[in-house]
């Protein structure tokens, strides 16, 4: 029971409180780039979730059984990037062959997130937070879902921006960044919920 409670807390933390985009400001590039339309935002969000899970499943054992074993913790970043990049390529090839429909909807986003900092960030944070394997997977799933949530929310905000007329000097990127800042600010409101989740 405690185990389950712990996992729920990890999940909620990485979805809402430590949202990778809106609180840690990782993965801003796709967040701003692919959030113009809701369906694209959903596609990107699902692709990121998928890759985060997969990357964690591979990088955690590498950290534990290769890097820690040889005392090479300082090589973490370079090894993780190497592995994640190769992994995403492999997944893309696999999808293209086996599930063409999924590849068509996900495919264009996969290469984009090869070296997404949010994906690398999740893998590194799982190690820093000293999570076990299952905890790491749950944390990455939460991070991915949090990314998806942020993308979809922001796509909604942006569609409202499109149909409004901001002052001339704010048009385009400035108003988008301002809106992103306000959305991020609103996520601060989740700050206290974890402590009281099971209180």
């Amino acid at each position, binding site marked *: 029971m405690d185990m389950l409670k712990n996992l729920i807390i990890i999940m909620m933390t990485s979805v809402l409180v430590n949202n990778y985009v809106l609180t840690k400001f990782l993965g801003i590039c796709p967040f701003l780039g692919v959030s113009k339309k809701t369906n694209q935002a959903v596609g990107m969000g699902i692709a990121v979730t998928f890759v985060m899970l997969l990357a964690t499943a591979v990088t955690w054992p*590498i950290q534990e059984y*290769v*890097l820690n074993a*040889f*005392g*090479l913790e300082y*090589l973490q970043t*370079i*090894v993780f990037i*190497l*592995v994640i990049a*190769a992994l995403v*390529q*492999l997944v893309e*090839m*696999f999808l*293209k*062959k*086996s599930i*063409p429909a999924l590849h068509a909807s996900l495919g264009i986003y996969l290469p984009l997130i090869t070296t997404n900092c949010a994906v690398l960030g999740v893998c590194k944070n799982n190690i820093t937070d000293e999570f076990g394997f299952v905890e790491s997977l749950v944390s990455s799933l939460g991070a991915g879902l949090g990314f998806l949530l942020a993308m979809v929310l922001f796509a909604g905000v942006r569609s409202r921006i499109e*149909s*409004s*007329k901001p002052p001339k000097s704010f048009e385009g990127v400035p108003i988008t960044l301002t809106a992103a800042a306000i959305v991020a600010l609103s996520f601060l409101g989740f700050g206290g919920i974890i402590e009281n989740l099971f209180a």
Partner: protein
Amino acid sequence: MPIIIATAVVTVIGLLCAVMLAIASKAFEVKTNPKIQQIRDCLPGANCGACGYAGCDGYAKALGENEEDRVNLCTPGAAKAAADIAEILGVTAAEVTKKVALVHCNGSCDNTEKKADYYGGQSCHAAKLIYGGDGKCVYGCLGFGDCVTVCEYDAIHIVNGVAKVDVDSCTACGLCAKKCPNALIEIITADKPVAVKCRNKDKGAVARKNCKVACIGCMKCQKVCPTGAITVADNLSTIDYEKCIACGACAEACPTGSIVFKK
């Protein structure tokens, strides 16, 4: 010594990844017809769907896989795309009839008036939600330019409060027709320069009160049409372009000037 271990570990991991990818690229190889890519390069890439397939990729795939001879479906690419594709596939190109978008409204600022001041979101879809828009006629062009935004070819513009198509730039992709909340835009063949520029279904007196060039459903056009191409239903005249011979008799007979004929 530690640096040798570090180098070795990274090298081994890199090599493993490389070998894995090399094997995977063979194992998961997907054979694509090279013609599909060639055909795709001939298409304009607007993904408008005028051909009836899901975007340019879908059309190229259909052409490449079935060796179809329907090479003339791409209206934006017109004759050039059809000829290029036909060459790749080794078939003869059929003629592509030039089509254009037509806006069924002439309610410019001179012909109709606003019934209210509107300060909401500057889009036709948004404006229509509030009592059908700010114009007196709820069937007509709202003039916020959703069609202008969606047009890939800069071929439609809001001129004096009403959408106007630039016939030369228009490729008849139909994106504007899909976007218009009042469904005012129709794709027709370019060789029939006659059109009922109204979609108002109100009774004649009401329609006329709201707009100077409204169709009042008087049936005069229906009577003078030599080929029976015009029907009046719901107080609105409609031209069947299959039967229309573009003689212009209806435009001459029209008392309000809602039918427009340009030779």
